[in-house]
């Protein structure tokens, strides 16, 4: 019974959280209010873990909350609940898209959409870069402490390598970043 509730709660989250992982947060707090297996004090920890592990945040949080409810099985049920609405909705949207792919209106919509998405991804990248290269708890006036010099050097190096050798796989660069981070105590 508890697993059915878990499935339904995360199904609801997947269906109504529009716009990425952080959009699932209000739903998690609502769960914490409602059920004894999740406390709202645990949620900041879950965010920290979700952000410092690979994978989509929403999925990480569902897995974590599900585990607290019912172990491994809870993790799987919560995650399946979260992704099921996506699968259904996207399949419907895909059918629609295929049917109207060649229509003027759909073409025009995407003509306007693509630059917007470029801007949105640029914004996400900007956020990541600011977080990576500048200290969050220091005033910019104190610029020698504000700028994270080690990270800036790594940034320039990785940028140069990835532009010069385009074939280097992103995974290799990420692993190199992790090693450099540990060796030079970044972050």
């Amino acid at each position: 019974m508890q697993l059915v509730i878990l499935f339904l709660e995360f199904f609801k989250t997947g269906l109504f959280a529009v716009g990425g992982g952080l959009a699932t947060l209000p739903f998690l707090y609502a769960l914490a209010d409602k059920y004894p297996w999740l406390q709202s004090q645990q949620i900041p920890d879950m965010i920290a873990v979700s952000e410092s592990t690979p994978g989509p945040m929403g999925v990480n949080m569902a897995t974590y909350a599900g585990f607290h409810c019912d172990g491994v099985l809870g993790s799987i049920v919560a995650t399946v609940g979260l992704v099921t609405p996506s699968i259904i909705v996207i399949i419907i949207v895909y059918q629609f898209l295929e049917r109207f792919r060649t229509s003027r209106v759909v073409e025009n919509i995407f003509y306007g959409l693509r630059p917007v998405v470029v801007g949105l991804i640029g914004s996400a990248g900007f956020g990541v870069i600011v977080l990576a290269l500048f200290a969050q708890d220091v005033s910019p006036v104190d610029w020698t402490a504000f700028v994270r010099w080690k990270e800036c050097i790594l940034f320039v190096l990785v940028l140069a390598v990835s532009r010069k050798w385009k074939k280097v796989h992103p995974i290799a660069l990420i692993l190199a970043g992790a090693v450099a981070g540990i060796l030079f105590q970044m972050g």
Partner: protein
Amino acid sequence: MKELFSLFITFARIGAFTFGGGYAMLPMLQREVVESRKWATEDEVLDYFAIGQCTPGVIFVNTATFIGYKRKGIPGAIFATAGGVFPSLVIIMVIAAVLTNFAELPVVQYAFGGIRVVVGVLILNAVAGMWKKSVVDKLGVVLAAIAFLVVTFTGLSPVWMVLMGAVIGILAKSFSAAGKGEA
């Protein structure tokens, strides 16, 4: 069957190396799905992203479902999504079970300090590539700039920007068509 397996593995690899939210998957998607496997074009990936942004659910899962479904129908959608979430399930279960202080471990924070830098570079490169392909005229430059500035500095939901792009796309094209007398 072979392609279903391949969808699972490819999205598992993308899931295992996507740090910091759905947008960070883009460089991996470009490399794995567009360049290596040729499962979708760069434009299609952008379209899926835009749709994934304003449909319910996790953007990563929405994009995986799109590409899986395009290749192999419903089984493809399920295998791609299952692959995408598989690393998360395993990693988070281990952390929830034994490494409850994972996020506070110094070695994790250091590693992540370095990973963030690389993710920043990867997204920057991805944006540069997309800019060349998808921002084709002055209106595109204006739309991209508005979306960037509004979302970066006001915290307004990206969903509104996506809707704005769709509406302006329709309006701009019908006006220019009317101007040429073909509407």
